[in-house]
């Protein structure tokens, strides 16, 4: 009598997570610009490579900031000098005594108001400089515009949407202190990004080009984890 074939129960197949061949490379692996830069944790700097303990509201999980830029401090001299000049105006005009007809308490009030407004002007100008940042991550470029106290604009474009980058340095101060404007043409909704008066514009352009190349490599070799 032939043996009845008894089928063995199918072994339970364990779900195996398919691991991709390539893992996401770190910025130092492919960027010659960033390889030379040390991570910075200075929140007041205008050129912050690989910033530590910094982030932004629309940052997605796994997205890391590569470079954070602000306008070069030389470009902030105008408001600094204005504030300085405004603060010495009462001293300059005190010999003329054009407020001679006012009682002492009114003069005190005017001085208090004047200096308070200078403080407000300095604070507002500083805030504009501090929050007006350009961020380059391994996925996107982000332009945070803090134009005034009631207007802000955040634009972003993916690295693979970038078509062209141009660095422009013009003027005596810009050449002397090595800052300029980086213009980025994109195929995103916003066609053009302008990183105004940022330090080391050539370095920034080179970094963006390296990021574009890496993005293309990722596309060719398959999506990486």
């Amino acid at each position, binding site marked *: 009598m032939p043996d009845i074939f008894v089928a063995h129960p199918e072994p339970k197949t364990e779900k195996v997570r398919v691991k991709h061949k390539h893992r996401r490379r770190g910025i130092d692996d492919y960027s010659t610009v960033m390889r030379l830069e040390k991570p910075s944790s200075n929140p007041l700097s205008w050129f912050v490579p690989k910033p530590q*303990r910094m982030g932004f*509201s629309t940052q997605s999980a796994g997205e890391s900031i590569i470079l954070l830029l602000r306008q070069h401090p030389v470009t902030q001299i105008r408001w600094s000098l204005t504030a300085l000049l405004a603060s010495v105006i009462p001293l300059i005009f005190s010999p003329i*005594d054009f407020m001679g*007809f006012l009682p002492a308490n*009114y003069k005190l009030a005017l001085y*208090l108001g004047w200096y308070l407004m200078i403080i407000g002007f300095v604070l507002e100008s500083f805030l504009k400089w501090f929050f007006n940042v350009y961020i380059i991550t391994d996925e996107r470029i982000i332009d945070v515009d803090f134009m005034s106290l009631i207007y802000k604009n955040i634009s972003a474009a993916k690295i693979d949407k970038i078509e062209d980058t141009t660095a422009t340095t013009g003027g005596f101060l810009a050449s002397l202190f090595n800052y300029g404007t980086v213009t980025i043409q994109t195929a995103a909704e916003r066609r053009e990004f302008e990183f105004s008066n940022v330090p080391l514009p050539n370095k920034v352009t080179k970094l963006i080009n390296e990021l574009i190349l890496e993005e293309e490599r990722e596309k060719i070799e398959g999506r990486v984890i």
Partner: protein
Amino acid sequence: MLWQAVVSSTPSSSIPPEVNQFLLMFIKWCLIVLMIFYVAFAGVVIRQIQIMRQTLVTTFSPILKILGFVHFALAFLVLLVFFSIL
């Protein structure tokens, strides 16, 4: 007459007392209204710092928040000084 009073450096005693009184009252209320607007502006600065520190997260943001509040407190203090000395 008012303009002469403003531009001239002559002491207040040379201006007729009723004009002088009116001018001072006018300046007083101008300063107080201006200061009220300034306090409102200082409040907007605080709000804006709160919004922007959520947009850009840095270790310096708490200090900015304190600066905003100090600025507001200073503005409010000056407004109180205006009310008391003018």
